[in-house]
């Protein structure tokens, strides 16, 4: 395993972490279009709160996928062909979600607009759920043949562990979205968001405990890296507790950062557990390894130069964009 290979493993983890931090609240906000939002003013405020940024947030996913292809083609090939139908569902969710944001405001009837908004809710639930399932399945190990091709069946993909993983990522995204709503929007909707958070944090805590137990039985993370895994799980629980505590106070930025970094910790947990593998096979000899699944040192070096130049610039204008849209949005309901 070379330093470059490890660097790219870390970079891909960072891209996924960035994706879940940013798109996490986008998904969460999308889930609130019905339920938390009570009228068109709320929905418009929700849309405005993520409108300028959701597309760029999603590019983190595209970049993560591209980086996997470029840096670890064997990983990319095995993962994407192996989780075919689940990825198809994720892609469809992203397709309909992206179209919905643009189409909803052009619909001639209120029913038409509603239809797209319902699709926003549905797709915002589906995408993180299936991504969560894919990642937990990847951690728990899959039947992989000597060529690196997955030969998995339904019950390899769908296990209690992957279901809990999917639900956990969805719930964390929803909570992250609620915290974002509290941060970005003014109006009664934030009161409702706080009320929901007070209920959901204990549920998440229980879920995390369950997840930790299943992690012990379904993966070798705790067996092979006991200290690191337990520390990360503990951090996750502490962050959740802090988040729960903060809902009883007026702070808005802190809980948002907590729920965002909660998702980041989950990604870190996955990647530390995988290390030095990329995909865990039932037959350990067939596991995809960082050392043997990467591109050549030359390609990795070229890519490193590109990232070193482009990433600061990209981060710069993305942060600037968030700064431009820093103002809170007032749900119209308050005005009337």
């Amino acid at each position, binding site marked *: 395993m070379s330093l470059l290979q490890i660097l790219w493993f870390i970079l891909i983890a960072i891209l996924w972490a960035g994706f879940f931090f940013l798109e996490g609240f986008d998904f969460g906000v999308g889930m609130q279009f019905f339920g938390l939002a009570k009228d068109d003013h709320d929905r418009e405020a929700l849309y405005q709160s993520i409108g300028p940024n959701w597309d760029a947030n*999603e590019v983190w996913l*595209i970049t993560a996928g591209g980086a996997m292809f470029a840096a670890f083609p064997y990983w990319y090939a095995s993962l994407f062909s192996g989780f075919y139908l689940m*990825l198809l569902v994720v892609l469809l969710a992203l*397709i309909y979600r992206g179209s919905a*944001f643009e189409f909803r*405001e*052009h619909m*001639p009837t209120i029913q038409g607009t509603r239809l797209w908004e319902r699709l926003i809710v549905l797709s915002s639930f589906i995408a993180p759920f299936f991504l969560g399932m894919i990642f937990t399945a990847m951690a728990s190990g899959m039947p992989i043949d000597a060529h690196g091709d997955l030969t998995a069946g339904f019950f390899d993909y769908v296990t209690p562990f992957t279901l809990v993983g999917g639900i956990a990522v969805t719930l964390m995204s929803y909570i992250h979205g609620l915290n974002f709503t509290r941060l970005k929007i003014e109006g009664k909707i934030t009161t409702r968001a706080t009320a929901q958070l007070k209920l959901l944090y204990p549920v998440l805590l229980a879920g995390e405990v369950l997840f930790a137990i299943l992690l012990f039985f379904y993966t070798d993370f705790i067996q092979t890296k006991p200290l690191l895994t337990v520390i990360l799980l503990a951090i996750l629980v502490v962050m959740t507790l802090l988040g729960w505590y903060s809902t009883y106070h007026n702070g808005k930025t802190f809980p948002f950062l907590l729920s965002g970094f909660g998702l980041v910790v989950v990604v870190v947990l996955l990647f530390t557990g995988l290390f030095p593998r990329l995909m865990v096979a039932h037959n350990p000899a067939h596991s995809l390894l960082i050392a043997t699944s990467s*591109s050549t040192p030359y390609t990795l070096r070229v890519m490193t130069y590109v990232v070193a130049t482009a990433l600061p610039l990209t981060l710069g204008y993305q942060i600037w964009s968030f700064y431009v849209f820093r103002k809170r949005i007032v749900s119209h309901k308050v*005005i009337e």
Partner: protein
Amino acid sequence: MTLVGILELARFQFAMTTIFHFFFVPMSIGLAVVVAVMETMYVIKKDETYKKMAQFWGKIFLLSFAVGVVTGIIQEFQFGMNWSRYSRYVGDIFGAPLAVEALVAFFAESTFIGLWSFTWDRMKPAVHVLFIWIVAIASCVSALWILAANSFMQNPVGYAINNHMGRAELTDFGALLTNKQLWVQFPHVIVGTLVAGGFIVAGMAAFKLLKLKPGDPQIILFRKSINIALVVGLIGVGGAVITGDKHAFDLQTMQPMKYAAMEGVDETIDSSKRSDKAQPWSLISVTNPQTHKVIAKIEIPYVLSILGNHSLTGGKTVGTTELQKEFVAKYGEPKDGVANYYVPENTLFYAFRVMAMGAGLLGLIAVVALWFNRKKSNLILTQRWFLWILGVMTFFPFVVNTAGWLVTELGRYPWVVYGLMTIADAVSPNVSTASLLISNIVYFLTFSTLGGLMIWLSRRVLHAGPDVQEEEILSPQDPYEHLQAQKESEK
């Protein structure tokens, strides 16, 4: 034999999804340029008409961009999903341009499109116009990287085969970017986007002019739109002819099979052995897809010498029959469900003619339209038949661009990477026919829905006209208004 089923389905999916995606790529890049020019006019002339114009066409642009983005996501994932053996074989080379595209171009596009569409009232016009230019330029950069990847498939460069790993490896990143293929293909695609942007705007404006009553104040906006759009469109057509000629010329050496099929040449034409010392060009040609022999054709003398040799006489075009023999000698007998090295001759022949003649027709119509639409003339309004023709041209760029894409991609058959790997060796071995069938059906239904909606909603936007803001209908108030009022009262 099951592999063939998977292969056909995976090929169908790639063709369907890329063609559909490629409807919206030239459309959105071209519209970005046209809208950027309009907004620049507003900044320079400070005439509100141009602002209204940019905002109006901006709505169509945003619709096309949204569909372009969501159909683009599939592309990047599809290589891993359907073509895993391809991904392993060339990932070391092919993955890099895709990753770089996302990082240096796609991030910029999507960030600045957000800034552009949400800050009309909050940024100075001179700053605001920069956003749309950044979007337009970033889209072109995006196209550059994607085509760098595609050009490697068409004309592999900068690599070495590693037999131990069983893959092709990158040895020269610079070579990917200086690929001869890239620098004929990229300019050709970019001018194609200008054709799309120009004629879509001009065509839609023509439909609108047909609806407007004489004396309607909107007429001036749409007439000006036609002028701006067609200037962009004409630049596109001119560029397409120049770059297309260069592209076709280079194909003779780079991909002779593609060239021979495009021109319907089955038996080698050697001008030195002919009495007129020139190569004739087929206007119409029909090839038997089983025997790969031309069974009927109408020829025009000299023209293929002009196109292929850039002079009235001379030159030689190697026919598909001879090339097939050459390829067998060079690459061996084809295997894995690939019967031979012939490409789909009839499709290439007619797609090429649709593209080339379509471009000529568009150029002609643009010139007439600009003449009818000059300031001193009212011909554009009185000659309603012509507005109909111009209106129908809205759909022509899609036909022309798709035809070009078909020539490029089908002419690669049976290679996924020219001379290196055949499509049959590239497909994922572990994806079931059922999975592929499901994804094909779902994508097909989804894309049909999106395409239909796109046309319908664009019509609605056009019908509503530039004076109606959709936002006004749905949300009567600016969400920031309250905050602003509050701040002012605090002062």
